[in-house]
């Protein structure tokens, strides 16, 4: 297949990822590296929704659920087990399984887009309300209290597999996060050019046609939803590690809105866009927190409104389009222009 542009993109991503992975710790201070680690974690989270929504065409307003489940699954398991290998796996498996169950419910019930958005939003709020009220002593799973709105402090960090005494240093956590981001990004690029990935995009483009070709649309959506859930769960696990603390805000409406804003700003239907969107907006949020000129909710809300109205494709596709116009070149086969419209054509 003629995938030269795609292959070049992959190589650039791999080289760039590795360069950042090993280069950044050499040039910045530990404090900056720590800041960067959380941006990377959020970029992983953005990738999970970029996959589900941008390529799978599934309108999910509940990505925070998988993120939160990953964070809590790791935390609760690590307090119970003491060694971090199984908890890390659980932080991926639990959200993936929950995504599969929720996906079964939605896709096999053939809910339309808007209803899917509302159901995922409601599920987010169920987790948020429930976890907020688990402060009492009676809410515990094994050795771990759930902590309710107070959250769970002093979460033990990831250790070297099999050696609970040898925990990872913050700098090593950076390597884990950046390594994960690079691996997931490349993995998703490869997934999307596989037969399975092409069918996923085909379903987004035209569900009926994919079905008439004999592809089981419901099953494909369920699988891509679960993969997205797993990635968001890993992001949750890394976040709990970075923060050493988790509380119900990981399930919050604010968290879920943020993920959507990253994807919209970066560009729906691309992978690199949401990564850039997440890092950029996290940086802005942090900066707003330090200078205190404006409330970050106000700014994020305004950004979302402005992008939906004026830059509906998002930054990366818009810049690509401008670049192509300047060069008069042909379109990149890897980018499909307007997935959101494709999503909407499914409305009743």
């Amino acid at each position, binding site marked *: 297949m003629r995938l030269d542009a795609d292959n070049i993109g992959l190589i650039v991503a791999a080289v760039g990822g590795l360069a950042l992975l090993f280069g950044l710790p050499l040039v910045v201070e530990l404090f900056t590296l720590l800041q960067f680690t959380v941006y990377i974690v959020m970029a992983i989270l953005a990738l999970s929704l970029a996959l589900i929504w941008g390529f799978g065409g599934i*309108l999910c307003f509940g990505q925070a659920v998988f993120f939160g489940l990953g964070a809590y699954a790791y935390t609760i398991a690590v307090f119970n087990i003491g060694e971090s290998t199984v908890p890390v796996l659980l932080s991926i498996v639990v959200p993936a399984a929950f995504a599969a169950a929720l996906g079964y*419910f*939605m896709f096999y*019930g*053939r*809910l*339309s*887009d*808007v*209803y899917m*958005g*509302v*159901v995922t*939003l*409601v*599920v987010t*709020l*169920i987790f948020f*309300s*429930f976890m*907020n*009220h688990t402060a009492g002593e009676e809410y515990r799973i094994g050795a771990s209290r759930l902590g309710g709105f107070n959250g769970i402090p002093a979460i033990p960090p990831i250790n070297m597999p099999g050696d609970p005494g040898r925990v990872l240093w913050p700098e090593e956590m950076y390597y884990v996060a950046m390594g994960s981001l690079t691996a997931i990004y490349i993995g998703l690029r490869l997934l999307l050019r596989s037969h399975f990935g092409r069918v996923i995009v085909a379903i987004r483009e035209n569900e009926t046609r994919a079905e008439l070709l004999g592809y089981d649309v419901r099953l494909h959506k369920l699988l891509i939803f679960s993969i997205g859930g797993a990635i968001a769960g890993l992001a949750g696990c890394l976040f709990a590690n970075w923060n050493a603390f988790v509380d119900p805000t990981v399930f919050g*409406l*604010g968290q879920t*809105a943020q993920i*959507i*804003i990253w994807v*919209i700003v970066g560009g729906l239907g691309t992978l690199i866009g949401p990564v850039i969107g997440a890092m950029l907006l996290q940086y802005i949020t942090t900066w707003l927190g330090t200078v205190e000129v*404006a*409330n*970050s*909710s*106000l*700014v*994020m*809300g*305004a*950004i*979302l*409104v402005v992008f*939906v*109205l004026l830059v*509906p494709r998002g930054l990366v596709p818009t810049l690509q389009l401008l670049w192509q116009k300047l060069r008069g070149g042909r379109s990149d086969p890897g980018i499909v222009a307007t997935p*959101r419209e494709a*999503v*909407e054509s499914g*409305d009743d």
Partner: protein
Amino acid sequence: MDLVAVLALEVLFAIASLALISAGLAVIFGMMRVVNLAHGEFLMLGGYAAIIATNSGINIWISMLIVAPLVVAAIGVIVERLLIRFLYGRMVDTMLATWGLSLFFIGLVTTIFGNTTRGISSPLGGATVGDYKIGLYKLFIIGVTVVLLAAVYLVLRRTKLGLIARGTMQNANMASALGISPDKVYAITFAIGAGLSGLAGALLAPLTGIVPTIGIAYIAKSFITVIGGGAAILTGTISASTLFGTINQLVTFQSSPVFGEVALLVAAVILLRLLPQGITGRFFRRSM
């Protein structure tokens, strides 16, 4: 016996408050097919409008019943003209834009009034039923809801706007076929929806107090009520509020308010799976 009476009252109140917080959203969704995710913030703004008006010396009843709906209706018109009208027919984009608006309002109000709870004491006192105390204000809210729903019924049934509204519910092109500018219909509808939300937020403010983020507490409940109810504005809202309100209150009574809320949300998700078109998609189909 007294317990049964008090419980019945609580169930009725749960139903009424669900219907109250959902009415504005139902009007906007039912007539315009606009999913307004800033609905919770319209309620929040109604609450602030009532509290500020009351604190600046306006009679509390006037603040709640007149000032708050008017202020929020005005905000609604501005929002419709500046934002929503560019997005008609693009359901997902409307959801995203109104979500952005929701965050914007939360941020704006936090900046102006701070992130603290404000309240006004609930007017009307309490009464005793046997060993139990009930708030008369809750009775008042039940009454207002009944009046409000009756008013919506009359508007839909008896006025020209209602006729257009019923037509639009059946067929989106109806309004233009009748020779009425759809622009105007949409702006008026959005204003009415926003005004209803403002009224609901104001009426509930004395019971809940008000913070910039209070909309989040309302948004899920009002959404599932409207969507669970289905396309018919009135019957849908009433039937869904009755179902969810009863579940909520009974579970609350058995365990705690949190589980009542969780039960309500779970019931809604299951209902949507069983009846994807909402209650009125299956039952009471010819109602409004």
